[in-house]
């Protein structure tokens, strides 16, 4: 087994332990297991990052051509934003969602057979990096905002209808903290998404001499951008917050999922990475 593989299996194991910590912490409503889970998954995160870096150094074109690399990168960025949100907003409950999700994606990435296809030399350069990096970061943020949004909508309904706030309800963060995750996804995620999209078009223009090739994924991305822009505008210009923005974040992320999974599997696209 290669060292790189070993690193990612180590990361999977640590994520598993970290998820356990989060589950224990949520069930017992104590911070300590969550922090332990965070530290363990943090170690996994470091190993994971190292393995990504090594893959990139060993054979950049092979790495960038394989869909498993992107899946792995996405799960890594998911955790990156988990840690940012944790430190900035104290939203430790997101660990419950993000850590297992990252683990499953990394496992899927391991399970996926590496397509030993070398990428055309055209797939390189600043714009390609920007395209991938920014979009994945934005989607990672959206995933967090979506999880926070689901929490928000349920807790908000519970408070409005004057239900008892015990058990799981007591374990959720306060409404304002959940809304702040949405705010961050909007203020940071939307610009990132925009940069990612534009750099993709610029790169396509450089490589293929056309901005837009009516690829299903490109169409979906534009749709997502429009909805995201709507959210951005309503939130920042009109001062929407709370329930409506939570729903919008869920919709935007849902569309991202459809475009990432649905289109890649069902339709022919040049974004299939393989």
């Amino acid at each position, binding site marked *: 087994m290669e060292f790189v593989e070993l690193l990612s299996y180590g990361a999977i194991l640590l994520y598993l332990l970290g998820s356990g910590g989060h589950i224990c912490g949520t069930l017992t409503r104590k911070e300590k297991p969550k922090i332990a889970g965070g530290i363990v998954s943090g170690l996994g995160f470091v190993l994971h990052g190292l393995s990504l870096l090594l893959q990139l150094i060993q054979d950049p074109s092979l790495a960038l051509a394989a869909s498993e690399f992107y899946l792995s990168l996405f799960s890594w960025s998911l955790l990156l934003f988990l840690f940012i949100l944790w430190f900035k907003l104290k939203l430790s409950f997101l660990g419950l969602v993000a850590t297992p999700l990252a683990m499953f994606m990394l496992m899927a990435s391991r399970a996926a057979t590496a397509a030993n296809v070398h990428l055309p030399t055209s797939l390189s350069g600043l714009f390609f990096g920007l395209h991938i990096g920014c979009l994945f970061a934005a989607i990672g943020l959206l995933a967090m905002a979506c999880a926070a949004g689901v929490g928000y909508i349920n807790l908000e309904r519970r408070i*409005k209808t004057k239900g008892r*706030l015990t058990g799981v309800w007591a374990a959720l963060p*306060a*409404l304002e*903290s959940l809304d702040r995750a949405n705010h961050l996804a909007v203020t940071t995620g939307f610009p990132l998404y925009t940069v990612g999209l534009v750099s993709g078009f610029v790169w396509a223009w450089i490589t293929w001499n056309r901005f837009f090739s009516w690829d299903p994924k490109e169409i979906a991305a534009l749709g997502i951008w429009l909805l995201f822009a709507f959210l951005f505008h309503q939130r920042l210009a009109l*001062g929407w*917050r*709370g329930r409506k923005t939570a729903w919008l974040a869920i919709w935007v992320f849902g569309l991202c999922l459809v475009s990432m999974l649905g289109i890649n599997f069902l339709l022919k696209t040049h974004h299939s990475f393989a």
Partner: protein
Amino acid sequence: MQHDIHLYGLNHRTAPVEVRERFALKEPESFEQCMRALDHAVSELMVLSTCNRVEIVVVALAGQDVTAQVLECWARVSGRPVAELAPHVYEFTGIAAVEHLFQVASSLDSMVLGEPQILGQLKAAYRGAVEKGLARVVVNRLLHKAFFTAKRVRTETGIGTSAVSISYAAVELAKRIFGTVTDKRAMLIGAGEMAELAATHLVRSGVKSIMVANRTFERAEQLAACYKGAALAFSELIPKLPEVDIVISSTGSTEPIIRARDIREVLRKRKNRPMFFIDIAVPRDIDPDVNSLDNVYLYDIDDLKEVVEENMVQRQAEAERAREVVHAEAHKFGLWLNALDLQPTIVDMLDRGERIARKELKKTLKRLGPDQDPEMRAALETLVLSISRKLYHDPMIFLKRRAQEEGGGEKFLDLARRMFNLDEETPPPDAHGDRKPQPGSGDDSPEILPED
């Protein structure tokens, strides 16, 4: 016992808020000066004054009746006739006074059962008494035992844990909405016990600022002073709403004073930042439609009652257990107080000496074996007993002399009892933890060294 402990007070149960305000003793100095006129009768004095209660602890010479003097001074300082005050005042003497004070410290006598704020206020009152030299042996021990009892009650019973009062539940809900209330502003509309309690809870949770609106501006100013907030004329209420996050309303109005259409405008001005309304009034002050607006949460008294109800029964059981703790501690204090005199102290000292001597004698005899000369045994016994008596002789003479001096030598009696461990207390591992400032304990625990 050379001294009696008396406790005089009034609280939310015996006196309505107007009376409490009139006789609040906000500046206890003049009252204390007045009491000093009686200097020989009163040896120790402590005054606790909060928005909800006044408690006066007086340690006076045994057999002296200081009630008349206390009431006289209290009324004079407040600028009111005694007749207006007397019906609301309760009086306890001896062990009953001790038990009452322990209950106050443990928050069993509070409006909100188990609220910890009173302990901080009591500590401040005690500090004041110590600084002015009004607290000596009895009050020192009384208050330390009161704090100890409060701590026991808090750790051994679940009295301070769950949401049991409506106002507490309201603050907990605010935390579910806002996370923390430390950067939030609150507004109190109208007055009334429950609304004031909710405001008290909010202030204690560290709310950033509080505004008080009332139809009578003077009343608003009084309440605002109580919470260190700002008073507001009733007409300014709606225009000020965009600045506040939490609104507690409890007016006697028959018409709603806040309507959904007002709030729609307010929300626009505050960019939809969430608002939490607590409507304690019956009939309601806030239009129920307000709850249907996004980012606005309205709880009225019935909603809050439901939150609280299930905790009530459990809290009562806990309170029962807490009362047992208080009773036991008060009993122990009574034993100490009774022993705090020359005769019992001497008896205890000799008794303790003899017990130690006999214990050691027994050990020695056992080691020497059974075939010892009875004469030898008798000589040994005489030896150890006379050594123990001789050892305690000088301390006893010293105590006798001090007892004849001014002040009764109580502090030396107390010292001797502690030095020779006559009350047989096993000191807890943190026995002296209260002597040094504890890191992170905040300013509600300013422990005071027992002076003298």
